């Protein structure tokens, strides 16, 4: 009980919460470990947006992202048993999402490919004068390009370039050395740039 409480207190150093909220967060974690569904609801309310944003950016598919969010929070009560407060609870949730992402990345990629094949729309012109249409085109292109990347490189790109996290924080989230993360990011950027330029984006 006590080490967990101290860990939770340490975790607050990452959070922009006031010190008075420290005990409340520690209590929330303890209730979460005991399987209190109201505690889970509170954690969801505080963090679902960040988790959903990360899931959407990683998967590029809203339905798949929603499934991943569901999976993350369902896994949380059990995963909270091993949470030692080395990072914030939000980062811990992102870490769970990364661990569960592999299956969802594949399914989202398959769904996107199927939709592209079945689409009756004519091929979008990436040189359309409308800015909105161009942005949509870029979004679709980058999502298809991300589907071609290995998961590790994909996660590195989303964490560092899309979510603008530092390489140190991203390395902690993926539980890999910072140098490894930087290498993954380098390869991801290189492949994505090549794919986008091949699609006509400059």
């Amino acid at each position, binding site marked *: 009980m006590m080490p967990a409480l101290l860990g939770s207190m340490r975790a607050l150093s990452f959070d922009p919460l006031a010190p008075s909220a420290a005990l409340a967060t520690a209590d929330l974690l303890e209730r979460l470990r005991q399987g209190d569904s109201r505690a889970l609801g509170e954690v969801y309310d505080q963090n679902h947006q960040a988790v959903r944003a990360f899931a959407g*950016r990683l998967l590029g598919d809203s339905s798949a992202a929603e499934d991943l969010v569901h999976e993350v929070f369902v896994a949380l009560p059990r995963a909270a048993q091993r949470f030692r407060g080395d990072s914030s609870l939000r980062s811990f949730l992102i870490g769970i999402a990364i661990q569960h992402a592999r299956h969802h990345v594949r399914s989202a990629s398959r769904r996107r490919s199927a939709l592209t094949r079945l689409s009756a729309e004519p091929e979008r012109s990436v040189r359309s004068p409308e800015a909105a249409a161009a942005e949509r085109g870029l979004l679709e292109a980058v999502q298809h390009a991300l589907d071609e990347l290995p998961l590790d490189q994909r996660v590195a790109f989303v964490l560092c370039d899309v979510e603008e996290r530092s390489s140190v924080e991203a390395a902690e989230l993926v539980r890999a050395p910072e140098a490894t993360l930087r290498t993954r990011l380098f390869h991801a950027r290189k492949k994505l740039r090549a794919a986008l330029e091949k699609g006509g984006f400059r």
Partner: protein
Amino acid sequence: MSESDVLQRAAASLRAAHDGQREGSGFTRARILGTLAQRRRPRRWRWLVAAPFATLLLVGSAWAQSTGSWARVWQAVATVLPFIQPSSPPPRSNTAKRDNPPRSRAEPAETLPAAPAPVEPAPQAAPAPVTEPPATEPPVTELAPAAPGPPLHQPPTTTRAKTTARAARATAARPPPELPADPELSTFRTAHELHVQSQPRAAIDAYAAYLRAYPHGRFVPEARYNTALDWIKLGDTQAARKALEPFAEGAYDGYRQREAQQLLEALPR
């Protein structure tokens, strides 16, 4: 990356497209809580089922222990579960001990057979071999320490007489078991009670009457063996020896053979 870099623009478009705000987030919240509640339900259900059974088992065990019927329960369980040894019941309660007092060491064949033993047809000269001796017959080796030397020629010692009398009183105090009318058993019981009450002469006569009436009866081996013991009590070693020899030679399928041999060795020639 420059401002106009394609990767930066791509990352920005991804960031803008997925900002985490969605109208269906409440639905996902309910779905998460529902999933967890559904996962917890079987565990709670298991407890709801197991708790009454566990309570029943505990209360039943306590009741059986307090009323002394634990041994019967154990026997019943042992018949159902083959890996339980019926010969090693759990410790009995005080009540159970009161109901079934331990037998005296010197008590020779005081109790009657609970159920008639199957007997094969017997020849005239030698009594029929018995396939299965009565379960309640005590081993005769208990008599062996008193056998050698003069005590065999004398009346039973005071201690022995006291013990036997106490056992006889206990037997008399015990209510007779409810058995259907059985003339053979009744005749044997008469002789057996005399034997238990240490009236060897009367017992010998009564056993002889039984053997005359039922030469192929169910209790022939017991009657003959107890007659031999009564001859020993009377000090008639010759008659005792004559009665014991068939047992020592295994004429009754080994019934009391070892005890008879030990007694024959101990008897003076």
